[in-house]
């Protein structure tokens, strides 16, 4: 029981962390609240489903192609619909909502609303302290940690990462220092969508693929980001595991818990915000005037 809770919270937590880091990045750099973020996650899951079940391709190959394709779609939709209206915050907001809706409807048209399953990359399981742990679960967890490590290295060790971090801190000054702000935003969008696609790809075998699968992760991801502090990678990381753990506890321990899991996680977020309005690791920015 306890191990079940821990495993489930680690896996959900890693996926929320991947999603939340991507969401935080694009918010930090371009001040875009990308509601369509988890829609890209759904798109990637469908890509894997189509590749493995319909075309019968190698799952790992499918994952790579899927992630690249979804990243391209993300960049194209950013160029077409979001970039031209960047200055109008409200307009960007509903543009991303409309994008998410459009993607959901396209998937509904192509694949209907059926609940679909994706076969695991590796079959089999192993007993750890008497609990059945599928290899797929271990793989998902490991790969998620690995990708987070890569993203951190990208942000902290490379020149591109420096550009992204400085643009997030102060867009105008970064621009004055000779960084091409719109190109940095574009690259960040690519990284962010790529992360979303990746988390969709690794979670697809463990979950049910359907056109509405983006709603719940979206809510959890936003809760994670707010809990951890907007724009803080460390905050997103810890927030994701805290909420993942809370969710797993509720599902396993409380009757009717599956209905209440969102409520409890979100209540935790609100409680933390009452004590620390800028989130766990957020920095209270000087008010822009």
């Amino acid at each position, binding site marked *: 029981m306890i191990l079940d809770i821990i495993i489930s919270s680690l896996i959900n937590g890693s996926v929320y962390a991947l999603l939340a880091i991507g969401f935080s990045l694009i*918010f930090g750099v371009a001040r875009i*609240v990308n*509601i369509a973020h988890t829609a890209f996650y759904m798109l990637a899951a469908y890509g894997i489903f189509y590749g493995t079940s319909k075309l019968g391709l190698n799952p790992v190959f499918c994952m790579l192609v899927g992630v690249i394709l979804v990243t391209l779609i993300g960049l194209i939709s950013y160029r077409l*619909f979001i970039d*031209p*209206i960047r*200055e*109008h915050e*409200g*307009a960007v*907001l*509903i*543009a991303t*909502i*409309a*994008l998410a*809706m*459009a993607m*959901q*409807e*396209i998937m*509904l*048209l192509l694949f209907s609303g059926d609940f679909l399953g994706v076969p695991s990359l590796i079959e089999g399981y192993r007993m750890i302290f008497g609990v059945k742990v599928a290899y797929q679960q271990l793989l998902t967890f490991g790969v998620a940690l690995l990708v987070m490590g890569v993203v951190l290295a990208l942000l902290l060790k490379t020149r591109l990462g420096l550009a992204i971090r400085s643009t997030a801190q102060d867009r105008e000054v970064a621009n004055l220092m000779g960084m091409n702000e719109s190109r940095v935003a574009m690259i960040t969008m690519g990284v962010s969508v790529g992360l979303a696609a990746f988390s969709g790809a690794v979670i697809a075998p463990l979950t049910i693929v359907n056109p509405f699968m983006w*709603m719940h992760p*979206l*809510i959890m991801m*936003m*809760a994670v*980001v*707010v809990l951890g502090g*907007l724009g803080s990678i460390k905050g997103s990381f810890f927030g994701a595991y805290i909420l993942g753990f809370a969710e797993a506890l509720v599902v396993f321990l409380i009757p*009717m818990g599956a*209905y*209440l*899991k*969102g*409520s*409890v996680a*979100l*209540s935790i*977020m*609100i409680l933390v*915000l*009452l004590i620390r*309005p*800028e*989130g766990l690791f957020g920095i209270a920015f000087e*008010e822009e*005037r």
Partner: protein
Amino acid sequence: MGILGFYLRKLYTVFRGEVLVLPSRVVVLLFFLVLLLLPVVTQDPYLLRILILTSIFAIFAASWDLLSGFTGQMNFGHALFFGVAAYTAALLNLNAHLPPWGSIPLGALAAVLAGLVIGIPCLRLKGTYLALTTLAFPIILMGIVFAIPNITGGELGISGLDRLSGSRLTDYYIAIVLMLGLATIMWKITQSNTGLIFHAIREDELAVRTAGINTTRYKLLAFCLSGFFAGISGGLYAHFMRIAGPANLEITMSFTVVIWAIFGGVVTIYGPIGAVFILNPLLEFLHFWPKLRMLMFALVILLILLYMPNGLFPWVRDKIETECPRCKIRNVATRKTCRVCTAQLD
């Protein structure tokens, strides 16, 4: 007789001088007249039904604008007010046998309470934090609704409420008159001193505080007012559809109201109402392609935003009217000089 004639002539002069000179005012007048006189021409139940729902949603969208447009407190969980009022009205109607004219205002009061409950913790938050936090409240409530199905009916909701009134035509007049009345009240609020403070809070809260105004009180007031109007629309919806269900609290509901309001143009009150009257019937008439309609809806919004990021109605208004540079009074775009101060317009 002479007195009456005098007042009639005066009324006519005011009408010609204040209403007919501006196309936007003529359009608003026509909008009122068409809606009120429509049943004389046709009483098609399907058309009336669409218009009733449209006007209920118009109240809802305008109430979002009152809170989020005017005070800038981005509320992503506006469905909370709608759902709380709908559920309260439904429970009061079924268990206490209150008629609609009692249950709808009480539902709206429950929504005001909800506004206070979420307003107090949210006062400390700003901008995106606020938007993402308010998103959480309807979802928390939805979890509770699902967890206690013997009171709330769980996924099925509460059905079998009393009808709004006996006939479709009366329903239509109740919805339309309420919509026009409440919209006028909201517009009046935004034109008053309170509305001015709301504007100022959006533009620069610190400056408002420095001027000795208690912004906390005004933000709470905005939450409560907006909750009240949204609550009335929620109660009307529950009684018209005769069901209050979890669909009223869904995240889609909160997003739709944001889409309507921003599409029509925020900080206007008339913008969201106009947007609902365009988008909602559009969605109904797209039912020839049931599978494509939400997709078309999304694409229409994306394309229109590319050309008018400030919203449809401010864009149209800027095309047909210009503001006098000297006295800030609006004029028809065809005029060469201002109608009041005769300054050159360009």
